[in-house]
């Protein structure tokens, strides 16, 4: 068809197909350049957010590899086997802790980057609608969006990974104490690995671009007219798919959290439940946030007058904006606090399971062999008040071809062979304890898989080997986590030339009313012992020690909170930015800028409060599940660690930051709009 009458040259059959394709590709990327130029100001906060996410993730991943590769490990050649293994423990700790921190960091990053990108893409829906109307296929638009977003995301992730990697030594210092490097006299010097930085970069890019794809794909599914009218994605009713998925996840949570499954240990159940709760919260966020802000907003409406009313109505009507602001709060509080609860409970629960049932009324610990002998002799004088006394002297030994440290326990043969039911003795599974003697040993079946007749080499602190034969298989006495009893022998059967001597004397009183008296009498014996503990004090010490071991969780809290705050501020800035036109109109009809700013602040606080309420419900489900699990295991639910303090502190910080950011953004937008005298 000729265009000659319009003065436009006819397209004809000029050029070959290759040239045509080449011109098209070049021009396609010119569209990408144009989009980058047009939207560059909107990338800033996304850039900052993904930079922070990459920084945190890369630094903890660097630490993980540093731990795995044993960076800075001392020359252990001059050490005995025991100290060589002991020197490895902090590296195992840092590996485990940084792995957990990496998982948490990635989880938080994934959800929040998805929300961030989704919000930016939704802002473009009219633009995408115009492209669709002019014949752009969905795949083309997705490709265009991926090419466009890839540039700022690549830059932010690259800088984040570089900075995070360079910060590795600093973060390593923070982990050093928590991983107990100081306890073994080692300084942790993590190396920076280029390959880890590269892996992190690729991982973050995949995450971010997946978020772009999901967001644009959703836009692409909508009719072009809907996009053009901006009827919105923002104001669309929650689809049936989301509701069904949310309900399904709730059912799965109920089953995993509260139905007893033999195969699910406490730790596994708690972790699985936490992940399910997090996913459920993310999927159902738009539904839940609307409900939460509607309810909480009634308070604002009642006390906040016009500003409160406006805040509530805006929060209810702007579902996508409210969900975007509430999401960082929800994710941070749910992920971080739930994981903290799970780890603490796992540690406490594990300790309690080891401690229960503890038959001993008193546990006396001594670290000096001579004092142990003195104590034993002195206790004979209290014979009438004591039903049973067992003393186990323990040391740490190693065995060849194993990286573990094993406890060898010695016992008085008389106490062991008597089999007094009230005494604290191991349970014999196979063989007989009467066969234990010089060159013959009993083995705990929990950690070792030897059988009767097997030969074992035990290595002492001088790295000398002692060959012994297994004559009995046992279970260590219950309720005493300090008495692992991997190997059991009798006095004088094996020289006591291991490391870390500890003697544990368990006392069962003739009557419970005499326990305090016995305890006082032992103190009066003037025997130097490490500690004398009642049953409850012994249990509490182990529970406390387990909880204190979670020091590295603080790193998780700080890292997660930082990420969430950045995303929160971003969401508020974007959400309020699109209000500038509405706010200007309000100003024109006589509403003061102060009231408008106040309303913006209240709305953001309301959104964060809604997210907090949802997170509270989610964390409560996790805590309730832990309580049920504890009860089922015969443990008191009172031991379930309640993270009220950390939860409240984080929530308060989020609300304050949200309020301040909203006030600032609203005020700044208003000033800018008033100066320009028009709205855009």
């Amino acid at each position, binding site marked *: *068809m000729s265009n000659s009458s319009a003065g436009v040259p006819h397209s004809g059959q000029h050029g070959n197909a290759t040239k045509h394709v080449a011109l098209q590709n070049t021009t396609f990327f010119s569209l990408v350049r144009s989009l980058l130029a047009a939207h560059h100001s909107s990338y800033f906060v996304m850039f900052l957010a993904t930079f922070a996410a990459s920084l945190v993730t890369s630094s903890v991943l660097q630490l993980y590899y540093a731990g795995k590769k044993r960076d800075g490990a001392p020359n252990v050649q001059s050490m005995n086997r025991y100290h060589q293994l002991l020197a490895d423990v902090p590296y195992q700790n840092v590996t485990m802790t940084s792995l957990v921190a990496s998982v948490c960091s990635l989880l938080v990053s994934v959800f929040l980057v998805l929300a961030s990108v989704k919000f930016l893409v939704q802002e473009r829906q009219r633009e995408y609608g115009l492209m669709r109307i*002019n014949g752009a296929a969905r795949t083309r638009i997705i490709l265009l969006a991926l090419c466009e977003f890839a540039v700022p995301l690549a830059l932010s992730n690259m800088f984040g990974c570089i900075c995070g990697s360079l910060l590795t030594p600093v973060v390593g210092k923070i982990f050093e104490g928590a991983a107990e490097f100081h306890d073994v006299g080692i300084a942790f010097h993590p190396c920076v690995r280029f390959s880890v930085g590269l892996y992190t970069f690729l991982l973050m890019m995949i995450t971010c671009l997946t978020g772009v794809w999901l967001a644009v794909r959703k836009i692409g599914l909508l009719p072009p007219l809907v996009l053009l009218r901006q009827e919105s994605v923002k104001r669309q009713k929650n689809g049936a798919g989301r509701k069904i998925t949310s309900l399904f996840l709730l059912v799965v949570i109920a089953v995993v959290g509260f139905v007893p499954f033999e195969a699910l240990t406490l730790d596994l159940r708690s972790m699985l439940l936490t992940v399910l709760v997090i996913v459920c919260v993310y999927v159902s966020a738009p539904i839940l946030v609307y409900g939460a802000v509607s309810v909480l907003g009634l308070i604002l409406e009642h006390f906040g007058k016009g500003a409160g009313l406006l805040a509530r109505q805006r929060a209810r009507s702007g579902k996508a904006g409210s969900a975007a602001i509430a999401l960082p709060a929800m994710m941070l509080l749910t992920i971080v606090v739930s994981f903290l609860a799970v780890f603490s409970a796992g540690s406490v629960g594990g300790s309690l399971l080891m401690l229960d049932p503890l038959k001993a009324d008193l546990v006396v610990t001594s670290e000096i062999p001579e004092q142990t002998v003195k104590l034993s002799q002195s206790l004979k004088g209290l014979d009438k008040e004591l039903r049973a006394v067992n003393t186990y002297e323990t040391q740490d030994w190693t065995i060849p071809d194993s990286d573990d440290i094993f406890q060898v326990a010695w016992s008085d043969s008389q106490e062991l062979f008597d089999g007094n039911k009230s005494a604290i003795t191991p349970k014999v599974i196979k063989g007989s304890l009467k066969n234990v003697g010089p060159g013959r040993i009993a083995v705990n079946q929990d950690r070792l898989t030897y059988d009767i007749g097997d030969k074992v080499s035990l290595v002492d602190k001088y790295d000398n080997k002692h060959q012994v034969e297994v004559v009995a298989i046992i279970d260590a006495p219950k309720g005493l986590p300090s008495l692992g009893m991997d190997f059991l022998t009798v006095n004088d059967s094996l020289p006591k030339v291991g490391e870390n001597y500890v003697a544990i004397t368990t006392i069962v009183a003739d009557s419970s009313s005499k326990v305090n008296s016995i305890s006082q009498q032992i103190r009066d014996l003037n025997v130097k012992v490490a500690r004398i503990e009642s049953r409850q004090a012994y249990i509490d010490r182990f529970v406390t020690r387990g909880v204190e071991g979670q020091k590295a969780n603080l790193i998780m809290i700080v890292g997660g909170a930082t990420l969430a705050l950045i995303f929160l501020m971003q969401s508020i800035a974007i959400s309020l930015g699109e209000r500038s036109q509405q706010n200007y109109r309000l100003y024109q009809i006589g509403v003061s800028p102060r009231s408008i700013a106040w309303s913006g602040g209240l709305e953001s606080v309301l959104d964060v409060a809604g997210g907090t309420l949802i997170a509270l419900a989610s964390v409560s489900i996790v805590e309730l599940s832990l309580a049920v699990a504890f009860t089922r295991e015969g443990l008191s639910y009172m031991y379930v660690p309640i993270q009220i303090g950390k939860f409240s502190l984080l929530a308060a910080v989020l609300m304050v930051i949200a309020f301040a950011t909203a006030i600032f953004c609203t005020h700044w937008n208003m000033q800018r709009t008033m100066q320009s005298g028009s709205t855009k």
Partner: protein
Amino acid sequence: MNEIPLSMSTATYHYVSGGPGIDDINVQCEPGSWTAVMGPSGAGKSTLLYCASGLLPVSDGSVYIAGRDISKMREKQLTQMRRDHIGFVFQDYNLVEAFTCLQNVMLTYLFGGPKILKDQALRALQVMGLDGFADTYPADMSGGQRQRVSIARALAAEPDIVFADEPTGALDTHSSQMVLDAFDRIIQEGRTVLMVTHDPNVAARAHRTLFLVDGRVHSVCEGYSSEQLASHLANMTNMGQELGQ
């Protein structure tokens, strides 16, 4: 071009909310014809345009563009139809703000449509009096200039049919004239224009005018002057009000 550019047969559309759509529309637009659509507010003019262009799926009846039934097409095929055979000119200019004028003119080609040479696109801009605006962004242009970019795209892309929804609604007299002159050029090239308008002066430039009332074609006027069209519109508006009562 042998096929009829646009043919609607008993086309019907009802909004989910129950609002008026279109009902039993039978319209055929020949190649090189210019058809205006008028009617009182809420008569279904824009709905007819959207259904005719495939932006809204008809709930009953059929719509043919370039001899192909678009009422049964999937989104992918519709996208290709829009790219290869349809041009749009909307009241709010229909330009992608992030792209330059040249990119906006070449948009369909950039997304895989029929080839548009750069010279061709520049020439189209020149014809619309937009020399030197190739690298300018829509935000830096007046409303009239932006509308002319939309028309330039319709010229350069050579669609079989151009759908225009109030193309002069936001323009001054001079710019409106330029737009209507451009439509004349399009018609002279043998292409078709279906235009919705409130303005009798604009409608008078068309070959014929369809009057819609309550989603149905009430009358078809050919060769009416602007005064006659204005009078007819007033009658339609009164009729619509009476029917509403």
